[in-house]
C-alpha cells in the first residue's frame, strides 16, 4: 500500500482522489500504471488515511468505501467527533482547543467559581474585607485559605487522607468514593443510553426506587439459600427498574407522550408508592414507627470487596461490567446501532427499516434496568435497608453524570467516579471546614453547563479558534452529548 500512498504527499493533485469507481477515461492524462488496481487499492487507502479530506473520508466510512448504500446516520452523528482535524492547525492549538482540554478547563472554571462562592461567605474573609485597603494581603490570604481549605478537605475526604492510620485508613476515602460512585455510574449509564437513542430519561430516580422496593422485598421477605437469594435480589431490582422504564417507553412509542414529562411524573409516583409501602405491614420493620424496612438477610447482601473495614461491595464490579456491556451494546451490536440511528434521526431510521417503536421501548427498558442496578447497589450493598431516601438524589445526579460523560459509556464511568468523589469528599468537607454540602451541587452543575458550551469556556480562557469554525463545533458537540436528542 505504501507505494500507492506515496504520491499523496507530493504537491501535484492526485486524480485518484475523486470518488473511487471511476471510468478510466477521465484519468488518461496521468501516467499511472495498473489503472484497475489503483482504483480498488485507492478505495481502501481512503479508509486508512483520514488526514486527507474529511468529507470524503466520512462518506467512505458510511458507504464502506462505496460498496454500500449510504447509511441513514452519518458517521459524524454517531460518534460525535470527526476523525481528523477539520483544518490545518498547529498541534498545540489542536490540543488546547480540543474536547479534552475544554473538559478540564470547565472543571477548573467551576472549581474556581465554587471557591469564590466559599470565600464570599467565609467569616474571616468578611472581617478582612473590612480593612481591605489597609492590608489587602490579609484579605487575599483569607480568600485563598478559605477556598483551598475546603477543597483540600474535599480531596482528603474523597481520595487520600494523610492523617489516616496506616495505608488502610489513608485509602478509606477512596473506597468510600468508589462506593458512592457505584449507583451514580450505573444510573448514569441508564441515562446515557437513553440519550444516545434521543430520549431524555429524567426518570432514573423513580427507576432506582422501584428497583429498591422489589429488591428489598425479595431480600428480607424471602428465605432462600446463599447465592440464589442474591441472584433473585439482583434480578428483582433489574426487573423493577426495567418495567418502570419500559412503561415510559411504551407510552412514548404508542401514544407519543413526551418522555420528559412522563418520567418526571413517574418519579413522584414511585416515591409516593414507596412511602405508602413503608407504611404498611408488608414493608415496615416490626416495632418501628419510622418508615423503615427490615434489614435484608445476610444471604441477600452483596459481598464486600476488601473486607469489613470498607463499605465497598461487588456492586462496583457490576458497575464496571455494566459499563463494558453498554459499551459493547452501543458500539458493537446491531441493537445499539439501531438505538444510535433512532437517536440521530428517527425518520431516517424508520425509512431505513428500523422499528423505531421497538427501539424506543427497548432502550427505555434497558435504561431502567441499568438504573435498577443502582437501586440494588443501594439496598443490597450500601444501605442494607429500604427507606424513603433509598435513591437519595442519585437519579438526578445521574443526569449530570451522563451529560458530563458525553453519553459515552466510559465517559459516564469517569464522570461517575468524579461525582462520587465530590459526594464522598463533601461530607468530610462539611465536618472539617463547615462548608455546606450544597457547594457540590453548584460545582457539578457549573461543570456540566460549561462543558455543554465549549465556545464559552474557550472565550473565557482566550482559546477561541477562528470565528467561522465556532458554530459547527457547537453543533457537533451537542449531537455528541445527547445523541441528537432535542
Amino acid at each position, binding site marked *: 500500500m505504501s507505494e500507492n500512498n506515496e504520491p499523496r504527499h507530493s504537491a501535484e493533485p492526485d486524480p485518484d482522489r475523486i470518488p473511487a469507481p471511476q471510468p478510466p477515461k477521465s484519468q488518461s492524462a496521468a501516467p499511472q500504471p495498473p489503472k484497475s488496481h489503483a482504483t480498488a487499492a485507492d478505495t481502501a487507502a481512503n479508509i486508512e488515511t483520514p488526514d486527507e479530506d474529511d468529507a470524503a473520508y466520512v462518506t467512505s466510512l458510511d458507504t464502506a468505501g462505496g460498496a454500500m448504500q449510504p447509511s441513514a446516520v452519518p458517521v459524524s452523528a454517531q460518534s460525535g467527533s470527526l476523525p481528523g482535524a477539520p483544518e490545518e492547525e498547529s498541534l498545540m492549538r489542536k490540543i488546547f482547543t480540543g474536547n479534552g482540554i475544554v473538559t478540564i478547563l470547565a472543571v477548573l472554571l467551576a472549581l474556581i467559581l465554587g471557591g469564590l*462562592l466559599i470565600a464570599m*461567605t467565609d467569616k474571616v474573609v468578611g472581617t478582612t474585607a473590612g480593612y481591605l485597603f489597609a492590608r489587602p494581603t490579609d484579605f487575599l490570604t483569607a480568600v485563598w485559605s478559605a477556598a483551598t481549605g475546603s477543597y483540600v478537605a474535599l480531596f482528603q475526604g474523597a481520595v487520600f487522607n494523610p492523617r489516616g492510620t496506616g495505608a488502610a485508613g489513608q485509602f478509606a476515602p477512596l473506597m468510600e468514593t468508589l462506593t458512592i460512585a457505584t449507583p451514580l455510574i450505573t444510573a448514569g449509564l441508564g441515562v446515557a443510553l437513553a440519550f444516545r437513542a434521543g430520549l*431524555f430519561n*429524567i426518570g432514573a430516580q423513580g427507576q432506582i426506587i422501584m428497583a429498591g422496593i422489589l429488591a428489598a422485598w425479595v431480600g428480607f421477605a424471602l428465605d432462600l439459600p446463599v447465592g440464589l437469594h442474591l441472584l433473585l435480589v439482583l434480578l428483582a431490582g433489574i426487573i423493577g427498574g426495567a418495567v418502570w422504564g419500559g412503561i415510559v417507553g411504551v*407510552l412514548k412509542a404508542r*401514544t*407519543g*407522550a*413526551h418522555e*420528559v*414529562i*412522563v418520567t*418526571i*411524573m*413517574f418519579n*413522584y*409516583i414511585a416515591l*409516593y*408508592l414507596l*412511602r*405508602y409501602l413503608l*407504611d404498611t405491614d408488608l414493608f415496615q420493620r416490626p416495632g418501628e414507627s419510622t418508615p423503615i424496612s427490615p434489614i435484608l438477610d445476610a444471604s441477600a447482601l452483596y459481598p464486600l470487596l476488601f473486607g469489613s473495614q470498607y463499605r465497598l461491595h461487588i456492586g462496583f464490579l457490576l458497575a464496571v461490567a455494566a459499563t463494558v456491556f453498554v459499551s459493547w451494546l452501543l458500539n458493537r451490536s446491531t441493537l445499539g446501532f439501531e438505538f444510535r440511528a433512532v437517536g440521530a434521526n428517527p425518520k431516517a431510521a424508520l425509512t431505513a427499516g428500523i422499528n423505531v417503536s421497538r427501539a424506543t421501548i427497548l432502550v427505555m427498558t434497558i435504561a431502567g434496568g441499568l438504573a435498577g442496578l443502582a437501586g440494588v447497589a443501594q439496598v443490597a450493598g450500601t444501605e442494607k435497608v429500604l427507606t424513603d431516601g433509598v435513591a437519595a438524589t442519585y437519579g*438526578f445526579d445521574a*443526569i*449530570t453524570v451522563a*451529560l458530563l460523560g458525553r453519553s459515552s459509556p466510559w465517559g459516564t464511568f469517569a464522570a461517575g467516579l468524579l461525582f462520587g468523589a465530590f459526594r464522598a469528599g463533601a461530607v468530610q468537607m462539611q465536618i472539617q471546614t463547615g*462548608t*455546606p454540602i*450544597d*457547594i*457540590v*451541587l*453548584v*460545582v*457539578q*452543575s*457549573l461543570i*456540566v*453547563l460549561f462543558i*455543554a*458550551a465549549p*465556545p*464559552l469556556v474557550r472565550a473565557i480562557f482566550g482559546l477561541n479558534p477562528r470565528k467561522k469554525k465556532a*458554530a459547527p463545533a*457547537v*453543533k457537533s458537540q*451537542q449531537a455528541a*452529548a*445527547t445523541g441528537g*436528542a*432535542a
Partner: protein
Amino acid sequence: MSTTATPPVPGKPVQPQPVPTLADKNRKHTVSAKPVTWKLPVTLLVLAVVAFIFFGVLGPQSTAKFGVSSGGDFFQLPAIEVPAFLSGIVLSVAMLGLAGYAMFLKTKNARPPRWVPALFTVLFVVAFLIWVVGGARTPSISLAGLIAGSVTLAVPIVFGSLSGVLCERAGVVNIAIEGQLLGGAFTAALVASLTHNPYLGLLAAAVAGALVSMVLALFSIKYVVNQIIVGVVLNVLVSGLTGFLFSTVMQSDPEKYNSPGELPIIEIPVLSGIPVIGSILFKQSVVGYLMYVAVAVIWVALFKTKWGLRVRAVGEHPQAADTLGIKVNATRFWNVTLGGAVAGIGGSFFTLVAIDSFTKEISGGRGFIALAAMILGRWNPIGAFFAALLFGFADNLQSIVTIIGTPVPSQFMAMLPYVVTVFAVAGLVGRSRPPAADGIPYVKG
C-alpha cells in the same frame, strides 16, 4: 388537483373525481386531517368503568356533607348534603354516557367536541370528592375552605405554568421553572428581610427569576446548548446555590436574613363576603391578585396583540418569522426572561405569603407540576390556569383527607396529580401539540 391536465398514471387506479356534495361540506367541519383515534373514547371508558365500580357500586352508604358558607360571609347558605351511594351511581352513569357518546362519534369518524373531556373531568372530580368524603370518619368538609385552599396552593403553579407558556410559545423549552420558583422564593425572603419591605422582596423575586431565565436564554440561544439539558442543570444549580447560601448566610443570623414578613391580605369590602368565590377572588395577597391579572394579560397579549402574533410565529416557524423581519432570537431571549420574572413572582409566594421564611427546597417540585399544568392546559394561559387549579385541588384534598380520615391512604392522594398528568399526556390531550419549533434552536442561514 385538476384531473383534466394530468393523464392517468400507469399502474395506478384512476381515482373517480370527487364531486363536492352537501354531505361532504357538512362533514368537513368534523373531519380533520388526522384520523380520529380510539385513544380518547377508550381512556374515558376505562375511567368511567373505574368510577362506576369504585364510586358507584362499592361506594359508601353514608351522606356526604359539604359546608358552603364560612363564618365571615355576609349571608349564610345551608350545607349541601348528598347521599354518597346514589350520587356515585348517577355521576358514573353520566360518565359512562359521555364515554359512550365519544365512542359513538368515533364510529362516525368524528372528533368529540372539547366539552366532552372537560365535562367528564368535572364529573369525575365531583364523584371522587363525594366518594372520599362519604367514606371518611367524619363525612363533612367545608367546600369553601377546600376551594380557597386549592386556589392558594395553586398560585405558584399558575405562575410557573405561565412562565412555561411564555417560553414555549416562543420556542424555548423551559424545564427550569423549578429553579426560577426557588430562586424567586430565596431572593424574596432575603431582600424582604434586609429591607423590611415585602414589596421590594416581590420585586427582587421577579428579578431573580429573570436572571435564572437569562442564563437559560444565554446558553440555549447564544450557545445553542440543548434546552432541556440547560433547564435540568439550572434546577440543580439554583438548588445548590440557594441551599449553600441558606446554610452559610441565612442560618448565621435568621433574624436579619430570613424573616421577610408577610404580604398583607387585601380584603375588598362586601365582595369578599360572597360565599365560596368571595374568599378566592376578593380576599388575596398582592401575589394572588397578580395571578389573575397575569393570566388575563398574558392571554390577551399572546392571542390578541401584534406582539403575541410575532411570539407565536417565532415559536411555530422561526424561518418564516425571520423572513418577515422579526428578530427570532431576540424575541426568544426577552420572552424567556419575561417568563422567568413571572415564575420568580410565583416563587415569592412561598416565602412572602405561605410561610414567612425560606427553607431548603421550599418549592418542592412544584415547578415540574407547573410544567405538567402547562401541557395539560395546551400551552394556553387560561387552560394552564385551570390545570394548575386542578393540581392545587388535589394537593389540598390530600391534606384535608388526612384530617377527616378516609380509607384512601394520603400517599395515593398525593400521587393523584401525577397519575392524572400521565393519563392526560398519554390519552386525554392527544390532540394538543406543542409549538412546532419548541425546543429547536434557530441558527440563521
